[in-house]
């Protein structure tokens, strides 16, 4: 366990080194946040919706703040797979899946925290109707944070499956492109999931993508009431376990048929 913790810590430290990327990311996400909010404000001006605008704005800011959690692959890991550096990782008395999982987890956690904190501060300072609102209740905040942690575990499991598939195809672009499309759409990054038609809700909120950020945000905004939280958290945990098991299976099979090319 200590070894995985060390891997986690080192990867977290490493992420801190990329401050330029952080700054770029923050500016980019702020820009997108402001544009999206401007679009929703225009929409609400011409045709008011049943769903309150302040919630949509909060949803957008939280999505943008934790964007890094969704689509960020560790270039080092992909490189290891392509170059064969993975050979060294196989010479460690660790589970290869676990080793990669904690690295992904550390990167996503640190990467998104580094961006989220300044961005949320910025969003809190914006005037009413543009900025983020307070959580619906203290319970909503706590439950939202819990759900965010589960979402992080879940998205790391998903990412590790991508890695497992990359080991077979040797090129991450196809699978990543597909996954990113699904992520952006069904995580609520392009359009808040709350704005999808009601008839869609049971399906899209059940998908694993909704567990990553949508569920935590809805707990925060009070869209999901605290009474409803156990069900939400259970669904998140269920998906996480399922995705981890799937990943483990994939990795185990990969390891059996692994070939390291060249020298």
């Amino acid at each position, binding site marked *: 366990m200590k*070894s995985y913790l060390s891997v986690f810590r080192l990867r977290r430290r*490493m992420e801190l*080194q990329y401050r330029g990327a952080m700054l770029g990311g923050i500016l980019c996400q702020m820009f997108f946040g402001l544009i999206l909010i401007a679009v929703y404000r225009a929409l609400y001006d011409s045709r008011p919706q049943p769903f309150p605008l302040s919630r949509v704005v909060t949803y957008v800011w939280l999505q943008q703040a934790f964007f890094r959690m969704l689509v960020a692959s560790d270039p080092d890991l992909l490189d290891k797979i392509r170059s064969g*550096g993975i*050979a*060294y990782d*196989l010479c460690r008395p660790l589970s290869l899946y676990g080793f990669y999982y904690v690295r992904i987890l550390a990167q996503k956690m640190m990467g998104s925290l580094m961006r989220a904190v300044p961005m949320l501060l910025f969003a809190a300072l914006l005037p009413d109707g543009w900025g983020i609102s307070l959580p619906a209740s203290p319970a909503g905040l706590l439950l939202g944070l819990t759900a965010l942690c589960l979402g992080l575990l879940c998205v790391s499991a998903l990412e590790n499956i991508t890695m497992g598939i990359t080991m077979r195809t040797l090129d991450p672009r196809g699978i990543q492109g597909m996954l990113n499309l699904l992520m952006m759409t069904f995580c609520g990054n392009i359009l808040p999931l709350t704005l999808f038609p009601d008839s869609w809700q049971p399906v899209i909120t059940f998908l694993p993508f909704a567990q990553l950020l949508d569920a935590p945000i809805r707990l925060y905004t009070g869209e999901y009431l605290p009474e409803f939280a156990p069900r939400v958290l259970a669904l998140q945990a269920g998906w996480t376990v399922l995705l981890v098991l799937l990943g483990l299976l994939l990795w185990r099979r990969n390891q059996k048929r692994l070939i390291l090319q060249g*020298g």
Partner: protein
Amino acid sequence: MSYIQVDHLRKTFTVRRKREKDSLTREKQQIRALDDLSFGIDQGEMVGYIGPNGAGKSTTVKILSGILTPDSGSVSVGGLVPWESRREHVRHLGVVFGQRMQLWWDVPILDSYSLLKDIYRVPEEAYRKRLDELAEALQLGPLLRTPLRLLSLGQRMRAELCGSLLHQPELLFLDEPTIGLDSVSKLSLREFLQYENQRHGTTILLTTHDMEDIAALCSRVMVLGHGRKLFDGDFNSLLSRYDTARTVLVRYEDAGLVPPLPSPLSFTREGDSLKVVYSPREIPTADLLACLQQAGPIRELIIQPQNIDHMIAEMYREMAL
């Protein structure tokens, strides 16, 4: 049964290649990387593993490390089957793949080391002592706090080596460990490996194209070609088989002098020196020197042994590799 016991090991790779240039169809070709390979290595041995490119050396090392699963045959290292009990097996194993990286690119190498310490569960005290020892042998002192990406190739190699040795493995696979090292580092690495082997009884399998490494370190050598073992035994006796020629360079006071040479020898001119290649088995060195001296006063005379790389090349040629 030896510490490392390999029996009838086979591994085939499939290579797909285009039928011809710009063709869309591909053909598959089976390449036998290892073809019925068997050998044993005892604890504490230092064995050189040589062979031309593509002979299957790295494949063997990967199978022995538990990374690859062979098609058939059996391997036992210290009683374990590497690819079946990988995690247990690698705990006491150190590997250096000369052309790959294990340390983290963007962090100081000391951080990578302390991660390795935790991964191999090395106690703090032992780790400190070991790191001091290695840092001195590999001249790493001032580099420890530098991120890996800022190091030169040779410095990086030394850092990588240190990483592989930190947990004091009882078995060490070195795959081209001296790539990119300067002479000083090479010598100190050799010294260190020798020390490691004698002091801790570390078993070492050294794969390299640098014959100086082999000559300095390994008494036993295995030659691999096309996936088959072609030679297994004493390095010097292998060399003596191909070590047939000597080169004499002689420079006379008077550049115009021409020595009478016993047939079938002849000389070539190199600058104002004469070069004679002869085989001591056919013509005793003393006889040849006498002939050379007859011609006149000699200013300088050099007798060169055969270059080790030439001998190995000769050997590969003869074995039709």
